[in-house]
């Protein structure tokens, strides 16, 4: 057995108050979310973090919505926790055991805000994909990085 961490962590400091950082992250989610990253068949019209419904989702140009998961915590301007209900090939994840979580915290640092993002329980995805035999297949995980670099260009 190797001790492999099942989370990724990223930090970024933004020149804004925690209130503004949280506001842009959530209510203006659509302004910064990478357009290429969607799961619906239709082109994405809007990406939404919706605290009223406690869900986050995409809305297609045809009006269809595709759920990305629940909002587990919505605590402005400190914390946001989201379910990641998206499978390896950018499709909706239907296996309830294969859902990871994204935890975002906003910490004031002088006039700026440190935003820390942890995407955790990634092992839940790999286990599900391994069970499906998707690992090593054409549409499976090994293609992920390539698709990613293609998308980011």
């Amino acid at each position, binding site marked *: 057995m190797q001790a492999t961490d099942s989370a990724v962590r990223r930090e970024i400091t933004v020149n804004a108050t925690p209130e503004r950082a949280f506001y842009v992250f959530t209510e203006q989610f659509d302004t*910064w979310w990478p357009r290429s990253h969607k799961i619906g068949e239709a082109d994405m019209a809007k990406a939404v973090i919706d605290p009223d419904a406690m869900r986050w989702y995409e809305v297609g140009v045809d009006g269809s919505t595709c759920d990305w998961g629940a909002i587990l915590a919505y605590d402005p301007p400190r914390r946001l926790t989201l379910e990641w209900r998206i499978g390896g090939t950018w499709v909706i994840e239907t296996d309830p055991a294969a859902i990871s979580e994204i935890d975002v915290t906003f910490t004031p640092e002088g006039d700026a805000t440190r935003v820390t993002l942890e*995407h955790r329980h*990634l092992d839940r995805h790999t286990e599900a994909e391994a069970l499906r035999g998707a690992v090593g297949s054409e549409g499976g995980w090994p293609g992920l990085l390539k698709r990613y670099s293609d998308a980011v260009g």
Partner: protein
Amino acid sequence: MTNGMDALGDPTRRAIFERLAKGPTAVGELAAELPVSRPAVSQHLKVLKQAGLVMDRAEGTRRLYQLDPRGIGELRAYFDAFWMHALAAFKQAVETPQPEG
């Protein structure tokens, strides 16, 4: 632990990784197929193993290397790069002056 994206940043390691995606392979076969020496292949495999991308197993007298199906190195690398990209876009959105309406 070696970050998976760093591990795959090296073109030779990327080539080894892509070769292993086609199926389990021994060090000697990798060295024969790629323009690298056998010791260099072993060194690259060690890095890939540490990053959780590759595992090895003994088959008779041979040692075969393959992608680690339970390893989440590649997935971590993927999301690490994805969030780096997304958070950079987020920072730009936060710091762009907005006319408050």
